């Protein structure tokens, strides 16, 4: 996978994804390794995303690489009107690999076409965020021992949530059964469902959580955003209908784990945090191992 860009999750084959997950496991066992000594990683955040940036920088630091970059474009030459192409070409003189987050859809694909060094997409607008998908897959495999034949429930905003779309598509390679819980106006788009149908997999749709929770091996919660609703009253009603609490978890399977891409608002009440089924903070930790695996394999040292 040396020099291979990661722009969308499907850029990597199932075998390559497995290799990354295996490598991430190795970094979880031994997180500090001085294998990227002398390498420079650029983190270009044209829009702020503290969580993702810190995770990448932590990954780079634990492998001995140096990190350069900016945290939002307001303080950089981008604000003076520099084109994305010029920024990428300039930075590629200083770095061996570029991690970028950008508010425009398709920006990462374009950057990978002009860049002489490999690009990792850390989010391009509403389009792709493949490292999130990989860390979700890692968390699922780690907690269930496999990615095959699982019952996965997604709850909340399934229409606009790109993490849900990418993970759903990635899981269609693993004979997943999908349980889709959302208000009618935020259902999974048909183009994503098409991918499920093409692989002859099953999906079930619900408007309330109970039944899906009973069946699930993985309960993937998402945030419902206010700006998706034209009617504020409707938002309040919907928001409160999809809150996970301790009582709801009483009917869950023993092996079930709760995932969430974070940050959460109120969709998981804090009383759940202490429950052994709550996995979302560990999930965020797993992001560092996945990003170590990516940096090491794309830079060709693993």
């Amino acid at each position, binding site marked *: 996978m040396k020099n291979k860009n990661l722009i*969308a999750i499907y850029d990597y084959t199932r075998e390559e994804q497995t290799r990354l997950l295996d490598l991430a496991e190795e970094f979880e066992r031994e997180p500090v390794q001085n294998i990227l000594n002398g390498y420079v990683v650029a983190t270009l955040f044209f829009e702020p995303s503290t969580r993702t940036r810190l995770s990448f920088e932590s990954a780079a630091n634990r492998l001995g690489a140096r990190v350069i970059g900016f945290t939002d474009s307001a303080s950089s030459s981008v604000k003076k009107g520099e*084109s*994305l*192409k010029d920024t990428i070409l300039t930075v590629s003189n200083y770095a061996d690999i570029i991690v970028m987050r*950008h*508010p*425009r*859809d*398709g*920006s990462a*694909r*374009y950057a990978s076409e002009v860049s002489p060094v490999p690009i990792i997409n850390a989010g*391009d*607008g*509403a*389009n*792709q965020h493949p490292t999130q998908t990989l860390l979700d897959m890692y968390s699922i495999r780690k907690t269930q021992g496999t990615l095959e034949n699982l019952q996965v429930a997604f709850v909340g905003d399934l229409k606009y949530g790109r993490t849900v779309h990418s993970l759903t598509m990635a899981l269609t390679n693993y004979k997943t059964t999908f349980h889709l819980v959302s208000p009618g106006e935020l259902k999974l788009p048909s*183009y994503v469902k098409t991918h499920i149908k093409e692989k002859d997999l099953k999906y079930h749709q619900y408007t309330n959580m109970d039944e899906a929770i009973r069946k699930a091996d993985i309960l993937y919660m998402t945030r419902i955003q206010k700006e998706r609703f034209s009617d504020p009253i409707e938002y309040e009603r919907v928001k409160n209908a999809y809150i996970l609490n301790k009582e709801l978890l009483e009917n869950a399977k023993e092996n079930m784990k709760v995932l969430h891409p974070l940050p959460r608002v109120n969709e998981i009440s804090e009383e759940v945090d202490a429950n052994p089924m709550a996995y979302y903070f560990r999930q965020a930790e797993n992001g560092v191992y996945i990003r170590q695996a990516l940096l090491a394999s794309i830079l060709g040292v693993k």
Partner: protein
Amino acid sequence: MEKTRKELKVSAIENGTVIDHIPAKNVFQVIRILNLDECQEQILFGTNLESKKYGTKGIIKVSNRFFESEELNKIALAAPTASIIEIRNFQVIKKMQVEVPGTITKVVKCVNPNCITNNEQVITRFRVVDKIDIKLQCMYCEKMTEKSNMVFL
């Protein structure tokens, strides 16, 4: 009699390509897609002409130019009904219909206002996912541009 012969002389070409049955409103579009505004050869074109089949039509005749089918297929989005006639020595030697290609470069604008191609100087590229209803998937933002919201560049 003299007049008719003169007209024939103007409209017939000795060698070259005739693009017929172009939707009348898209003649200039086709000229632009094929870069004919930079062509040095004799070019004749007409639009809002009578057509038995389509009501009105446009036609373009380019002397001494023969196009690769790849190049001609670029006009398929603007002129899906177009027929191509190659002429040598005043004789029709080849007739064909345009065909929608698998990928479209540079011709159409992406429908997504937040797409990088609408915000930086990036040449648009699309995968054609439906050749009949014309659905184009942007190779950058992955959004679908359909016939109803297609804007030519």
